[in-house]
């Protein structure tokens, strides 16, 4: 497994074209793997691992693409279209790739990490009795937090979102004014950067009518405790939630700062 990073040169038209549509960006990411054939199983190797990617828009001109993949990617085409080709050397080709397995092996139960995850929080609803259910996005930060805080989702993912120490909370006990439990201020978790994406998707024969994909993505930042290292490894390499082809589901971990303030 490899974790790779590529920085977009947002001033270039090529970068704008790719950033404007997760559909094109997915295609560009998938083209980084010479061994992946379009007639193959689709999204990755046979062992269930797949290519995951995520865009971190930290600032207007700091847009980073993270890719987790079974193979080492070759992002030369991205550098040429949307990077800094003249600055690329053989040592620093314009992107960084590092083996992910040593890091994954270091994960132990009970360790605490800071994480970032861009996901597509959805639920299935029916508006009236008898209607088939419909996948619907969570649109408020509270519901979006709820999606990630779902106990089954956390257990399956092999992690537990950390709770805030009492002295960092704004609400005394994390309850609403009706004394119902409320997670708004209870967990080390923030939801930000909601994007309501809408972009055309090409039909299978490339000429048929294009239909519009609509998607809500949000980025989570917070702290988690590893509860099941194997499951968390699977989460980190296979993704969490829906819309993995459109830049969702990739969670990355960083060590806590020397003294979390």
């Amino acid at each position: 497994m490899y974790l790779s990073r590529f920085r977009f040169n947002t001033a270039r038209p090529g970068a704008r074209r790719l950033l404007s549509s997760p559909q094109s960006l997915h295609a560009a990411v998938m083209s980084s793997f010479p061994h992946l054939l379009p007639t193959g199983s689709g999204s990755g190797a046979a062992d269930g691992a797949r290519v995951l990617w995520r865009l971190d828009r930290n600032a207007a001109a700091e847009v980073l693409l993270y890719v987790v993949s079974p193979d080492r990617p070759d992002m030369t085409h991205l550098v040429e279209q949307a990077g800094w080709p003249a600055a690329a050397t053989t040592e620093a080709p314009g992107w960084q790739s590092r083996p992910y397995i040593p890091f994954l092996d270091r994960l132990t139960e009970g360790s605490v990490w800071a994480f970032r995850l861009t996901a597509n929080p959805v639920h299935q609803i029916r508006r009236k009795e008898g209607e088939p259910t419909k996948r619907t996005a969570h649109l408020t930060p509270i519901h979006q937090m709820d999606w990630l805080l779902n106990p089954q989702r956390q257990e399956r993912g092999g992690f537990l979102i950390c709770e805030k120490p009492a002295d960092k909370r704004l609400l005394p006990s994390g309850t609403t004014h009706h004394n119902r439990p409320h997670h708004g201020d209870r967990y080390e978790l923030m939801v930000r950067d909601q994007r309501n994406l809408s972009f055309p998707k090409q039909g299978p024969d490339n000429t048929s009518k294009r239909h519009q994909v609509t998607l809500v993505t949000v980025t989570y930042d917070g702290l988690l405790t590893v509860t099941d290292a194997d499951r968390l490894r699977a989460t980190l390499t296979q993704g969490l939630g829906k819309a993995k082809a459109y830049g969702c589901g990739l969670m990355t971990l960083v060590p806590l700062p020397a003294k979390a303030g």
Partner: protein
Amino acid sequence: MSVLTLRLDGPLQAWGASARFARRTTESAPTKSGIIGMLAAARGMDRGDDTELARLAALRFAVRIDQPGARVRDYQTARHQITKVSMPVSERYYLADAVFVAAVEGEDELVDLLDAALRAPIHAPFLGRRSCPPARPVRLGVHHETDLPQALRDEPWQAAPWYRKKHDRQPTVPLTVLREARLGENGADFLRDQPLSYAAEHRRHALRPVVTETVEVPHPDVQAAAMTTMRVPEHDPLAALEESN
């Protein structure tokens, strides 16, 4: 020394320093005589009580222009309700939509006394003219152990939301302060609004030196926005991984 700050906010205000007869002009900021008169009225002082007024008039005065407002002219042709006698036709000028913070500096006991008087005023305060009621409570706060410029720097910007929005980019706003000159200070304008007597038969005012300054006050909305817009946390997953190659 303590400073008492007042918020002067209302749809109309009128602060005359040189207004006489049928043309009642207004300055662009509250006058000392207007504010001292308001405080004296809040304490219920008599108009002829010149010795007590001298104590109040010795307070040092400054005013901060939080929202300059617009000057409006009223061509007034009033008639008496009952006798139908026409009053003299007069021109009255007002400041519309202005907000000021006025401050008086003096001994602690006197300032506390005036603060208490504003909490329970004997005569209600008005903004320079009886027909100009304040929109919000006039009393703003008492600052102990400080001086006029510092108190006006500490006091938050009181302008209306629609006016604050016009300055929504800078973290601080420059506001004009008209401050009474210190003893022997140069470069002062003069305004005849130092009250000597409010007695009905002879109102008298002395010249008062005024220094114009600027203070920088934090913009409350920009600060609030900075608090609520979540910053992007640091996150560099590659740093946790060992170098390959």
